[in-house]
């Protein structure tokens, strides 16, 4: 896109005098704010992660010890495992449901606009409120499930008191909240596919399943990959919903790394250790993102 013609024109546009300083003047305000409020803290966080704090002040410099300690901390390892399970389950269900719904909505029909409008709601509602909504569904006394069960003659339904059910309850919340995003991305992807191969396959008499397996799915792989990567990165940092729904409990059943990190910092006041934990999470997510970018470049090239 950027051929030499537009390049040289841009040079010409730069003009002289005050105009020479213009790009710097335009970049400065944003860059200064970002440097002060994001980059400096990032650097400060790296520094803090090598220290031990007591009551808010540094008492020892321990180098990489905090990072090493993480990998023998059973609570951290458990929270990491819970997070991986949570992300894997949620994103898988969201991808399957979102894809199925997108395929279903591909043919325009009446009511599709209403459907798309309604599907925007879960992902724009404040995550804290989403968690309240699900507490109101799961609560054993005031919950929707209990009310329905009692209406049908059953008893109270317990969800958040049992480790396994609470975890599943959290996955259901995430699927409710984020399947619509999957759906929107995948629908846009499906709508941008070329028509010719599909027409040709129909002429050749291919059935629905063959068309899907040989054409739709392979052609949709890049979009599917982007959607899954975006959602995975996002789900890895899930905090608000868990904080309000279960606070990580019962026991450690829903304690994601973000919750464990928050507690380590603000409840147990282990500032340096928590900083190391968060830096580690950041590195994991960046690694995910960069491998995803490489994956996409490869898909683009082929």
């Amino acid at each position: 896109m950027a051929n030499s013609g537009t390049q040289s024109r841009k040079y010409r546009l730069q003009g002289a005098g005050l105009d020479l300083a213009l790009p710097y003047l335009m970049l400065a305000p944003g860059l200064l704010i970002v440097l002060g409020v994001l980059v400096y803290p990032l650097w400060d966080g790296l520094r803090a992660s090598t220290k031990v704090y007591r009551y808010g002040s540094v008492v020892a410099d321990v180098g990489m010890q905090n990072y090493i300690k993480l990998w023998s901390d059973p609570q951290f390892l458990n929270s990491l495992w819970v997070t991986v399970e949570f992300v894997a389950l949620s994103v898988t269900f969201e991808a399957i449901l979102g894809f199925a719904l997108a395929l279903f909505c591909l043919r325009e029909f009446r009511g599709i606009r209403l459907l798309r409008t309604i599907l925007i709601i879960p992902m724009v509602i404040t995550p804290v409120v989403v968690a309240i909504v699900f507490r109101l569904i799961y609560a054993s006394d005031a919950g929707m499930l209990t009310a329905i069960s009692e209406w049908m003659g059953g008893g109270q339904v317990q969800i958040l008191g049992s480790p396994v059910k609470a975890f599943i309850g959290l996955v259901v919340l995430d699927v409710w909240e984020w399947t619509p995003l999957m759906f929107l991305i995948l629908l846009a992807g499906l709508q941008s596919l070329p028509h010719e191969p599909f027409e040709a396959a129909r002429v050749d008499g291919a059935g629905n399943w063959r068309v899907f397996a040989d054409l739709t799915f392979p052609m949709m792989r890049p979009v599917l990959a982007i959607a899954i990567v975006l959602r995975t990165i996002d789900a890895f940092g899930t905090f608000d919903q868990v904080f309000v729904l279960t606070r990580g409990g019962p026991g450690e059943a829903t304690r994601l790394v973000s919750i464990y990190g928050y507690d380590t910092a603000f409840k147990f006041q282990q500032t340096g250790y928590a900083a190391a934990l968060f830096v580690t999470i950041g590195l994991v997510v960046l690694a995910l993102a960069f491998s995803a970018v490489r994956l996409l470049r490869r898909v683009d090239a082929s």
Partner: protein
Amino acid sequence: MNSRLARIGVMSAVLAIVLLPIYWLVSTSLKSNREITQEGTLYPHLPTLDNYIRLFTEKQFGAYLTNSLVVTFFSVAIALVAGAMGAYAIARFRLPFAMERKVGLFLLTLRIVPPVVILIPVYLLMLKLGLLDSWLGLIATYTAFNITFCVWMMESFFREIPVDLEEAAMVDGDSRFGAFRRITLPLAAPGLAATAIFAVLVTFNEFLFALALTATPRAMTMPRGTATLIGRIDTDWASMSAAGVIGALPIVFFALLVQRHLVRGLTMGAVK
């Protein structure tokens, strides 16, 4: 005929799954605590607005709402101005050492790092500056997050606008900045709107930093204030559900109003 039935079936299933939880929230917010916990009714038999009134008279939701609106407005407005200028510089100028491209890539990387990574140092920074529990502390934090997003999104919008229009304006005597302000910016208005909308959504809904950086109704935002209603043992379901409705209403209303512009921001430009 069969496929039509299937369509209606799937449609109603999806609508029910999305709307039933919301119905339950709204319906609970219109019941008294007695009706909620003891009678377990499926709809409010004695609908009341008491829960909402109590939020504003006893629980300071007026303050939370004000804080949210002020913080969201300023952090989005500042980020939009600073972000649009930065994005324009990156999209249009060629600086020595390809500096503009490096700045762009740098901001994008910052955007990918989960915010939780800098939670502790930002907390320590605000503590040092005496900005804990203040509008300014929240505005500074949110503005910075919004800038990384605004620059990245606005850059692609500016690239779609042909350079010739600015050149023509400059031939007619406009300065470089004048051409940006009078020609490019108005043309990028739809993009600017889409960016602002998404920034408003994210900022209004933010919870983690509000949780760490605020402690009293002086600066607590809506999500933060709502979370304080959740007790350890006893839960005031009536207030909580009303708070949920009040907390979600402005942003859902806003989102439905501007839904056309929303999808690009939500999907992070994965598909144009």
